[in-house]
């Protein structure tokens, strides 16, 4: 029998905050997004208090704190380090692992012969991660990725259980699928589930029994794959190669509203510079830069969202070109008279720098946009100088406007900074 496992960290960010704060055992914890805007993670206790995912912090702040909850700004240095540790422990336990996200990994259990051993492996794995890193995980074991996801979902619902669920017997699988709404199946979004509901498919079990021909014809190959996976046919393999990123996004909500395009431009420039650094770190070049600007979703009277892209004739990773493209896009979408609350930069259409195909018509494009610049050497120089602390700015940035992200309630970087180590008496 070929089995695989999904290891999923429980309420990961909230659990990370607890590792070095034993006093927070059983106390509700929420973690906020950059700039302390929304709730992005909740401990079990905070969920029980009714704090919803993604809710703006200001809406729940008062009642949450009054009820003794603890709040943190996001501390990605800590979460990243603890995530790496969890994955390293897992890599030491099985040969084949796919790190699916910061808090999830698929393990190949092909070395395990029967379901009893698989279950015991799951328990062992869970205990080791909890003891070694201090993070609680739950584990779903099944013949396919889609079923393993569902198994881990069941493990989450069963509070106080062993945290490990094996889904392999047909009757047991049927039982679980009958009680599972389709929008909780991996890969079924809200839109798709609405369409499926229209043809009377409500539970994962209904979906499993759907006609495969129909699924492929009326919907997609992806849906067909999901149905096969629900039936226990393995369609999705464990991918241990790290897929290169397909896009880079840098976006922020502002602390105050911005109406002036000049100020907006300096802010967008800051994001563009950061995006350029990330792009070069990834060793990529991009063909397209896009800009998004938006008003606050809470201001019902004046709402506007603008989005536009600038396309280069050949792939670039020079920040000066990114800035030029961003400026072009920004001025196209900017509308006077709106209080902007958010802006962002998106770099996309990547291509590996060593496989560049120069366009036959390059020269003509460049004469139209004289500003397309590409200088690897200069960029490497700037990145090197800005590594520790920014020393070189681009002219369209304004350093004093580089208001750092607001993180008023951030916890110490316990594992990555000598001066913020936990202390013992």
């Amino acid at each position: 029998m070929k089995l695989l496992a999904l290891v999923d960290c429980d309420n990961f960010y909230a659990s990370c905050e607890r590792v070095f704060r034993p006093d927070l055992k059983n106390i509700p914890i929420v973690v906020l997004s950059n700039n302390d805007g929304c709730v992005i993670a909740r401990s079990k206790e905070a969920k029980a208090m009714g704090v919803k995912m993604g809710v703006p912090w200001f809406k729940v702040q008062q009642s949450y704190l009054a009820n003794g909850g603890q709040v943190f700004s996001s501390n990605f240095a800590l979460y990243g380090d603890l995530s790496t540790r969890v994955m390293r422990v897992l890599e030491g336990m099985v040969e084949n692992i796919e790190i699916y996200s910061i808090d999830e990994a698929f393990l190949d259990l092909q070395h395990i012969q029967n379901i009893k051993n698989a279950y015991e492996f799951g328990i062992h794995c869970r205990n080791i991660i909890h003891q070694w890193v201090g993070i609680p995980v739950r584990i779903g074991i099944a013949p396919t990725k889609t079923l393993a996801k569902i198994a881990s979902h069941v493990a989450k619902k069963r509070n106080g259980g062993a945290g490990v669920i094996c889904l392999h017997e047909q009757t047991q699988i049927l039982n679980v699928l009958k009680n599972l709404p389709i929008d909780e199946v991996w890969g079924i979004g809200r839109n798709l589930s609405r369409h499926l509901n229209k043809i009377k498919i409500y539970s994962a079990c209904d979906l499993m029994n759907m006609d495969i021909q129909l699924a492929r014809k009326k919907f997609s190959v992806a849906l067909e794959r999901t149905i096969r996976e629900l039936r226990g046919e393995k369609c999705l393999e464990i991918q241990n190669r790290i897929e290169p990123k397909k896009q880079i996004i840098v976006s922020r909500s502002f602390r105050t509203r911005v109406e002036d395009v000049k100020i907006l431009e300096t802010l967008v420039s800051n994001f563009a510079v950061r995006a350029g650094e990330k792009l070069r770190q990834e060793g990529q070049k991009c063909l397209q830069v896009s800009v998004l600007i938006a008003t606050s979703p809470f201001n019902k009277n004046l709402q506007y969202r603008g989005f536009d892209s600038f396309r280069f004739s050949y792939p670039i990773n020079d920040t000066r070109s990114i800035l030029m493209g961003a400026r072009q896009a920004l001025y196209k979408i900017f509308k006077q008279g709106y209080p902007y609350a958010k802006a962002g930069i998106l770099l996309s259409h990547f291509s590996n720098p060593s496989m560049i195909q120069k366009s036959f018509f390059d020269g003509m494009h460049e004469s139209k946009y004289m500003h397309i610049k590409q200088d690897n050497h200069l960029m490497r120089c700037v990145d090197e100088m800005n590594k520790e602390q920014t020393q070189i700015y681009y002219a369209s940035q304004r350093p004093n406007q580089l208001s750092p992200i607001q993180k008023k309630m951030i916890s110490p970087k316990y594992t990555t900074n000598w001066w913020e180590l936990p202390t013992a008496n």
Partner: protein
Amino acid sequence: MLYKYTVLKNPMTINYLGSISTDDLPTTFTKFFLESVSVGFPSPASDYLENPIDLNQYLIKNGAATFLVRVSGQSMINANIADQAILIVDRSLKPKHGNIIVASLDGEFVCKRLQLRPRLCLLPENPEYQPIYIQHGQDLDIMGTVTAAINQFK
């Protein structure tokens, strides 16, 4: 690799000039022309070069499970753990009777010697401090075993 085509005066003729690498070209050139080349006798040590000593390798056996904790106070001074020392704590080692450990006691981290017999107790290494006997219902979670302490003198 980049294949470079150049359009010559007659726009219908395309000459293939060969391929060049786009990667690191400037660096290679700089090094080639600016750095002097030694022509003396080669270093006799060059065949025996080894990596410099790495403290991590000596002090940390299981990186994923090892955390650093700073000591506050003198309670472990007779075990050569001074105030502000940095402890290497390995969470993967099962704490045994007599080991120095870091534990959380009533929501705070403490560094003490673990005594399992005759009675569960956390022993300080300083006569001015009292042993901590764990009472029924008291919360004691052992975080990990201290494998080394770094005392800095300067």
